[in-house]
């Protein structure tokens, strides 16, 4: 499994820079960021969804393994959020002239960073594993519940220069040919990479849990 994913991602990188043409309306080659930025953001959302799922499962089961799965998903989600943020702000510099210009999407992603950084700080502040698991699960769920407000409030307060998401408001895919092929391949590759990393860290944590170390 591992070698296939690595080879696949290698092919994606080559395709992203050499095979796929740049898109119109972007400064220079900056459109190529879409092959890495969007999949990273997608994986981050996926990871946070997974952590929400395991948080609910934990509150029903009180099984520390479920808590561990939620925490691992948050840590990795945070990693991909940082990747999405950094790649996005490089794009912002090229396209709009500033690394940070308080675009609604930049604001939204900072909220994710704040929530899950707070989640990790909370985990560090509780020693008892069972109590830590309860508190962080409740926090994750509570944050998840209030997130839709952010999604709705922000676009009403700030204007966006962000390119349309590749499925635009009209519901049609505004992406063509090689760009679309490379993009979808990268999306699949990132997801598989995340699945690999997630399973690996869960295995590590399970060993630590069995040894009675931290969760």
């Amino acid at each position, binding site marked *: 499994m591992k070698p296939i994913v690595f080879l696949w991602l290698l092919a994606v990188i080559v395709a992203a820079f050499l095979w796929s043409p740049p898109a119109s309306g972007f400064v220079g080659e900056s459109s190529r960021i879409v092959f890495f930025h969007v999949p990273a953001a997608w994986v981050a959302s996926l990871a946070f969804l997974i952590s929400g799922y395991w948080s609910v499962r934990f*509150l029903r089961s009180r099984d520390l393994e479920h808590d561990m799965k939620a925490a691992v998903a948050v840590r990795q989600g945070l990693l991909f959020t940082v990747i999405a943020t950094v790649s996005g702000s490089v794009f912002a510099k090229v396209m709009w002239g500033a690394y940070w210009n308080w675009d609604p999407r930049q604001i939204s992603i900072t*909220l994710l960073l*704040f*929530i899950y950084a*707070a989640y990790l*700080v*909370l985990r560090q*502040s*509780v*020693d008892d594993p*069972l*109590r830590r698991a*309860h*508190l962080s*699960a*409740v*926090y994750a*769920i*509570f*944050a998840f*519940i*209030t997130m839709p*407000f*952010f999604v*709705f*409030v*922000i676009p*009403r*307060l700030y204007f966006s220069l962000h390119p349309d998401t590749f499925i635009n408001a009209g519901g049609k895919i505004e992406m063509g040919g090689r760009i679309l092929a490379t993009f979808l391949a990268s999306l699949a590759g990132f997801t598989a990479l995340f699945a690999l990393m997630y399973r690996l860290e869960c295995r590590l944590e399970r060993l630590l849990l069995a040894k009675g170390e931290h969760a």
Partner: protein
Amino acid sequence: MARASTPWLSEAAAIFLKDLRSELRTKVAVNSIVLFAVITLALVSYTIGPYRIPPAEKPAILSALLMIILFFASMTGLSRVFVKEEEARTADTLRLAADPQAVFLGKLLLNLLTMAGVTAVVVPLFSILMEFHPMHICSFYGITALGMLGLTIASTLIAAIISKAGNKGALFPILAFPILLPLLLATADALSKAAAWPDLSFMGQALGILVSYSGITFFAGLILFEKVWRA
């Protein structure tokens, strides 16, 4: 004396009255919040004052400042309802005697009363010191009240969480900030409109957002609190 458990509304009232009595005897929470708010307000007045802000910018900037002051001030006192129980080691005694939902409701009522008092002092003072004269006074105060309602509900659940963790003081604003951010932004926006908007056409939507935030966080808190309280 075998009997079913008490209706939890009357239990919530008992807990609220118990906490109110303690708070009236010590006044720690309300004093710390009001003083903190007044100190920040004084700092804002000294550094910015009413005349440095161009009139056209006033509604937006002053509304935002007001929300920032109220947010940080509330973070100094709203956690006391739970932190005190844990620190005085009365939490277990209460846990054995009371229904968790009644505890949440009772503590929430006290926090609401505290924040109502704080708002009643701080907002008029802010208007006077910063020369902030909203166009639609009633809507302005109504929005403030609704904003503080949502802030208090969400903060009360977070307060329960941090009362069980170490490093409580710093943790409270860290955890509360991302949860409250959408509310704070929506409230500040609605306030700035109530301050300078020619008509009240924005009110419907503002009310919808604020009421639904309060409602959702309240009912979610009612479910989730038990998990925290017994953690």
